[in-house]
């Protein structure tokens, strides 16, 4: 196969992701435009950040008047989950030219990771295939966001905005559910959820997410250490 054929084969595999990213991206763009963010910034965020949950959080925290530092730190924690995916994917990419790794890692998302892992486990794939797969998903996200930014104003009713904003929570619920594979993570989720609710009600500002997350991870490690597992 030529490199172009490999690229197109990867691109074709991205279709299910694109079908998900178009409406989700649209919801992001629409919410951002309703929050008063201009189209160039809506696009800039999709192009430079390329992280669904991170972008939804940024929009909702901006709308709530949160400070720049707490937004960036929250997005950092939310996207920290990619560390483990990047580490896991690296084992399949040993033969790839190192210069494509920045682009491949920039395009790493929950969905592309899941799909790519499946494909790479089935048989060896080259970097053109992976670039086609990831790049097409990226294009779908950026286009969806742009369309949402342009036509989102049409959905500027409280009911529509209230419904669209739920895309964020449904996405988080999904990402959470698929990670509840071990007992310790179920406990961690319960602990972080309760702490976060408590801090949210008691501590002013937008730091409750960060406080609950860091406290839970630290407690988890302490318990493992105490049980002699570490």
């Amino acid at each position, binding site marked *: 196969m030529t490199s172009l054929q490999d690229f197109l084969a990867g691109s074709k595999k991205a279709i299910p992701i694109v079908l998900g990213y178009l409406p989700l991206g649209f919801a992001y763009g629409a919410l951002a435009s309703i929050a008063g963010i201009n189209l160039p910034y809506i696009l800039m965020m999709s192009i430079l950040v390329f992280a669904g949950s991170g972008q939804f959080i940024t929009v909702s925290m901006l709308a709530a008047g949160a400070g720049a530092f707490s937004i960036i730190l929250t997005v950092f924690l939310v996207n*920290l989950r990619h560390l*483990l995916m990047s580490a896991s994917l690296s084992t399949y990419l040993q033969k790839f030219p190192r210069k494509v790794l920045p682009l491949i890692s920039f395009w790493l998302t929950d969905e592309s990771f899941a799909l790519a892992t499946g494909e790479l486990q089935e048989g060896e794939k080259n970097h053109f295939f992976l670039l086609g797969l990831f790049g097409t998903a990226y294009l779908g996200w950026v286009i969806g966001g742009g369309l949402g930014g342009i036509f989102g104003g049409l959905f500027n009713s409280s009911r529509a905005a209230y419904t669209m904003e739920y895309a964020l929570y449904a996405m988080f619920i999904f990402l959470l559910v698929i*990670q509840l594979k071990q007992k310790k993570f179920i406990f961690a989720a319960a602990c972080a959820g309760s702490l976060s609710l408590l801090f949210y009600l008691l501590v002013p500002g937008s730091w409750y997410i960060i406080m609950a997350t860091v406290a839970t*991870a630290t407690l988890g490690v302490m318990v493992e250490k105490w049980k002699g597992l570490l």
Partner: protein
Amino acid sequence: MERLTLVILGCAVVTFLPRFLPMYILTRLKIPKIVVAWLSYIPVAVLAALVVPGIMAPEHKINLTFTNAYFIAAFPAFFIAWRTKNMLLTVVGGMAVVFLLQYL
């Protein structure tokens, strides 16, 4: 809009680094076990920390009644996610329930 540019660039950097660094340096550097253990809790912890206040206390007050569509819709969303492992179905299902509950 200067502040917005700063937020976007900051988010771009902090999103890129966790995606890039492990892929790039893992072959050369060994991460301490305790750090790996700590990091393994972050995904579930941060997701639960985001979801719980957002669905249980949307207006800064705990509301677990039918007037809180976000809380009610979490049950079908949870169920769809668990059974189908499909993100699009989960999102569409959750949003449909929220939309319909507003007409009750």
